[in-house]
């Protein structure tokens, strides 16, 4: 018998979001709200941008609301009004991305109206959207989420999230890999990276891949081979993990969108773990003037340096 996860609060949360969106659109606080709406397939959800108070009723929150909407504030801005404050519906994990983006001068807090969701979890990407949320169907990231209740938002519905203690799959997998020999790990990742077709969906969906020109697309000089061959794939994923170190807060969108099912977020979470151990830094909890790799202390660890 798998443990079911109580999502009874989601309908009340939906109502609260709708009411709040209607209010802030109606009184002109915001010019648009980015949120989730029901999609065609039963139980599924998709991102939506609404700019009319009347449309607020379309907003929902269900276990199928998996997307990190932060990306609509940086890269996918086509439908977003250029002026005024923008409302956005955020889960705790999405909020961490916004916090990071604020620290990197990509967003300004005063331009946003944050509607936080006391989220108990969403479905894994491999599960059909109208499935019941249980310990089995829960997304891996939600199993070890430390931000069920978003903080610092402008509005959060009063419902409280549930957060049962579950086995932490990412942590377990990281520990498993760490225990292997370098050669075994290389074999593991070689197999994983070999699958990559360089579709760059991971890059497209990542809130932090906001560079206008990616280093990996450059050809003078070519830092990373662009063809989807194992050498270039490996280089791409290493560079991606390095560039996200200290920034990625684990929304795991990269992994969700990967058509080849490469466990991409493992790399990011491993980096996050190292940064916590090395510099006691955790991304996404507060807007920091400097990230862990743009600052230093004189007492940083240098045991690895001869």
């Amino acid at each position: 018998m798998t443990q079911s996860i109580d999502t009874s609060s989601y309908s009340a949360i939906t109502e609260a979001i709708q009411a709040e969106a209607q209010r802030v659109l109606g009184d002109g606080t915001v010019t648009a709200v980015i949120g989730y709406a029901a999609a065609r397939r039963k139980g599924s959800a998709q991102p939506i941008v609404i700019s009319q108070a009347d449309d607020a009723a379309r907003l929902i929150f269900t276990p199928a609301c998996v997307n990190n909407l932060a990306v609509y504030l940086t890269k996918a801005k086509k439908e977003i009004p250029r002026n005024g404050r923008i409302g956005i519906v955020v889960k705790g994990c999405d909020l961490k991305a916004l916090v990071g983006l604020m620290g990197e001068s990509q967003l300004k807090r005063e331009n946003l109206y944050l509607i936080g969701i006391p989220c108990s979890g969403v479905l894994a990407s491999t599960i059909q959207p109208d499935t019941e949320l249980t310990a089995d169907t829960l997304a891996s990231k939600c199993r070890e989420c430390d931000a069920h209740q978003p903080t610092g938002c402008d509005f959060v519905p009063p419902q409280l999230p549930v957060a049962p203690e579950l086995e932490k799959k990412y942590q377990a997998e990281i520990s498993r890999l760490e225990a292997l020999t370098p050669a075994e790990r290389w074999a593991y990742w070689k197999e994983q990276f070999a699958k990559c077709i360089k579709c760059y969906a991971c890059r497209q969906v990542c809130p932090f891949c906001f560079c206008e020109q990616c280093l990996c697309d450059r050809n003078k000089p070519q830092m990373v081979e662009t063809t989807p061959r194992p050498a270039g794939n490996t280089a791409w994923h290493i560079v991606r993990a390095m560039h996200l170190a200290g920034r990625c807060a684990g929304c795991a969108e990269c992994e969700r969108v990967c058509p080849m099912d490469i466990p991409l977020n493992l790399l990011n979470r491993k980096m996050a773990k190292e940064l916590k151990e090395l510099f006691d830094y955790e991304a996404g909890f507060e807007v920091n003037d400097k990230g862990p790799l743009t600052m230093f202390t004189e007492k940083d660890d240098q045991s690895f340096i001869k």
Partner: protein
Amino acid sequence: MSRIGVFICHCGENISRTVDVERVAREVGLLPGVSFSTDYKYMCSDPGQNLLKNAIQEQKLTHIVVAACSPRMHEKTFRKAVEAAGLNPFLCEMANIREHCSWVHENKEEATVKAVEIVGMMVERIKKNRILPGITVPVTKRSLVIGGGIAGIQAALDIADCGHEVILVEREPSIGGHMAQLSETFPTLDCSQCIMTPKMVDVANHPKITLHTFSEVELVEGYIGNFQVTIKKKARSVDEDKCTGCGVCMTKCPQKKIPNKFDQNIGLRTAIYVPFPQAVPNTPVIDRANCTWFKTGKCGVCQKVCGPGAVDFEQEDRLIVEAVGAIVVATGFDLYTIDEKPKGSAIKGYGEFGHGKIPDVIDGMTFERLASASGPTGGKILRPSDGKEPKQIVFIQCIGSRAREKGISYCSKVCCMYTAKHTMLYHHKVHDGQAYVFFMDARTPGKSYDEFWRRSIEEEEAVYIRGMVSRLYQKGDKIVVMGSDIAVGVQVEIEADMVVLATAIQPQKGADTLAQKLGISYDKYHFYSEAHAKLRPVECATAGIYLAGACQGPKDIPETVSQASAAAAKVMTLFSKDQLEREPIVARVREAGCVGCFACKKVCAYGAIEEKEIRDRQGNLIKTVAYVNPGVCAGCGTCQATCPSKCVELDGYTDEQIVAMIEAL
């Protein structure tokens, strides 16, 4: 297509002994792009350089690789030669086949193979080298000196004497700083005012010095050679141009009982005042917080008695903007107080000394004012509490200094000497008195310093007790000082009439705020950081800003004056040319790709990276990007390694050049 010329040097036999130079020249000559390749006995000699120059002309070479010694040795030489032959100097690179090859390997085959590869790497690199025009920055030959103590005065006079304009800004109503407060100075015991006031007058009379007292630096913009400084002239309530300095206003002012900060608050002054009689400028200031007119709207006596009509109650703060090319920071020090410190302060007060609540426990500067002939007691050592002459006096050293548990770990450097001086001044004025000094060590390096300290013990009868004081408390009209004499190993209790604390030297309050305005760095105590502790002790890491005096760390007067003159010399070096020339190894931003995350700005230790707004023709903001100020950039390249999309690039060390070298392997 580039036409690369490669020149292999024998360095006598230094290279050719272990490297087959002919073979290197031959093999390298086959590399694509290499049009000319040769070897020569001594490339750095005149004939060698001529060989290079001629080859450039005759072979129409576009890029040059000289394979010889370390570029640290002769890069400049060959770049000059290349420039003389009409090429941009940055189209010449050196391949180090001596220090990194022939000298460290014995096997000729191995060394030759390595040399070919080293040269090959440089050939690939130079294909990606670009013409780098030299960078010149215009220099405004005026300077700003912040702080009118002895450091600022000395620096201002030195610069002005060289014929350049100086703007001297002082926060207080008069220049002079702490040195003007001192009674006598070690190790010669000459009167501080006697040596100080002439310099103050020189400043006032110098045609090249513009003095702004009662003023503060509000804003600093720009960079080396081109700073714009906004100075706030606080309302003095007295027109400096009209005032003759007759002083009638001060004699008539009815508010006469205001503690005078210059006298460490033991002397009194009026509401309209100059801090001390020899003040420069000799123009009074109205202390608006204590003036009856400003408090009640009545009185106005000073205005009525002022002949020239200089008193102006309506005066307001004024902002003036000055363009300068260099800035000397000489903001000096402040003294540690033993009061209870605010909550959260890393620095703790002295609870064991009653947090400074006993009136006859004073600090060294207060003792200076008591001993000064122009001080509040006319030079008599008298207790602040009852005006009696203290017959037993205890000096305690290292109050705050060298006390990690109190939050300060450094030595304040001057206290040992001035305490020795105090015991002498005391002995000269109170013949039947006894001075005791509690000390940890006596630190007296310096010309005639140790002799001076010995004299205080041997001739002036001061009793030095090695050990610290654990507690002092008031008992009747005495202060009981409890301490230990660790040399003998006993507890000591002295019933003193007065206790003088040698409190630590700290940076001025607000030193951090000023540093932020200037864009210079400071340590955890807020002392300003020099660019290099040993080799660049008067320069800040921020180009064009120099340090003088105790704002950088505790210093005595001779050291302060030396550093002030050194800072002035650095300013003069900058001013010696109309244009500042510098190597064009600086970072540049590719604005098209920059997304303005400013990671580069965060890692730049020089503050060279600014935010730049890009707007369309209608003035709408398109985006904000990074901009590297080439006058400030030092060329370390940390920004480029940090930039995720490599939109900032360090000329001379571009990714293309480096990757070309890696790929050549």
